[in-house]
């Protein structure tokens, strides 16, 4: 829209607003607001999908499908505050669908990929502090946990990732997976036991 000089116009960027306001404007068709939300959530959704599927291409498909569906369905979202949970829910269900399709067509089974091969990244970052021995230790820890995650049933893996890596609430996870909160707690406990056992074997 072309603004003229009649009134001073203050344009506040989406990152200066609270998320609910940005979501409300995206619901009313504001593309800048939507683009900001895509930037905020694409990394989170990608990390969830990558750890669910262990495949970059499929994880990117989940991110794209989820955010395109988000744009289409945004006007129907009744509680703008629930936006984050709603996105996680759509992404989780797409990951579970992808895994279901894989189990029907087993030829698409993935080679277990370590983080380095699949993501093209190396462990450095603040947690290694430039110490190569610590970096190697972190790399081993990550590979061990990633390999153990692969052995969990899909819904347990989803419970564990949503709770432990993404910090989502029990109530939200329960509604995402259409089970009770008690079931979520049970699955999480079982996921932790299995992960702890697998990681001990890995060492």
């Amino acid at each position: 829209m072309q603004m003229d000089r009649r009134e001073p116009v203050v344009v506040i960027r989406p990152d200066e607003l609270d998320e609910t306001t940005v979501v409300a404007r995206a619901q009313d068709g504001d593309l800048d607001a939507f683009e900001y939300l895509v930037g905020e959530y694409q990394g989170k959704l990608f990390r969830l999908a990558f750890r669910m599927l262990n495949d970059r291409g499929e994880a990117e498909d989940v991110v794209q499908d989820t955010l395109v569906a988000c744009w289409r369905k945004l006007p129907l979202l009744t509680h703008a505050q629930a936006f984050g949970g709603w996105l996680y829910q759509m992404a989780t269900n797409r990951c579970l669908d992808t895994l279901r399709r894989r189990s029907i067509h087993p030829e698409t089974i993935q080679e277990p990929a370590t983080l380095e091969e699949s993501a093209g990244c190396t462990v450095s970052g603040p947690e290694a502090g430039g110490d190569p021995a610590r970096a190697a230790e972190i790399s081993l820890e990550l590979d061990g946990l990633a390999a153990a995650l692969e052995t969990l049933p899909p819904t347990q893996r989803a419970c564990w990732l949503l709770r432990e890596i993404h910090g989502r609430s029990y109530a939200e996870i329960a509604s995402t997976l259409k089970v009770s909160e008690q079931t979520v707690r049970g699955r999480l406990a079982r996921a932790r036991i299995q992960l702890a056992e697998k990681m001990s074997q890995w060492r």
Partner: protein
Amino acid sequence: MALDDNIPRLGCGRSIDEVWTTIDQPPNAHEQDCDQCRTARASLAQLSEATRTMRGHDEEDPGLQPRSAVKDAIMSLARAEVRRGNRIPIHQVEQGVIEVSEQAISTVIWFGADALPGVRARRCRVHPDYPDIADNPGPPARTAGLTVDLRIAVATGTYIPEAAHRLRQRITGMITAHVGLNAGTINIVVEDLYDV
């Protein structure tokens, strides 16, 4: 499913959740003596450490982001399916009708509201508040007014009547200046408070 709901227990009777939630604390008297608890604590502590590592690492790792082509594809689809809301006929001359999209007017209103401290404009509906032009072919060049329904959040501590008054004035000014119409009714709903 009952089986799914159970929190598994160690042979000594302690639930895994009890062990897990106290993993950062020193072992209690039972845990010091119980082999099963000691083993469980050791392996869960290792998992807890690895979990923390993954949480920190994945978030920081630039390799764990989708390629920029993904965002480009999402945004070009969104642009192709852009929602402009209703088209509002605002002016009629002999040569035809001038219409403005509801979304364009909302953008003007948001910008106007953003200039006011303590106010954040959220969902916005705009309706022409005059009989439909199509039903009323009468004299041309007749400018109509608008009704605005706006939901807002205000900063905690804001005196709402005054904020709403200034917001009304601001919206009226913006619509007059940018759309060339009178804002008739401006309904404001304060739906939320936010912390500054």
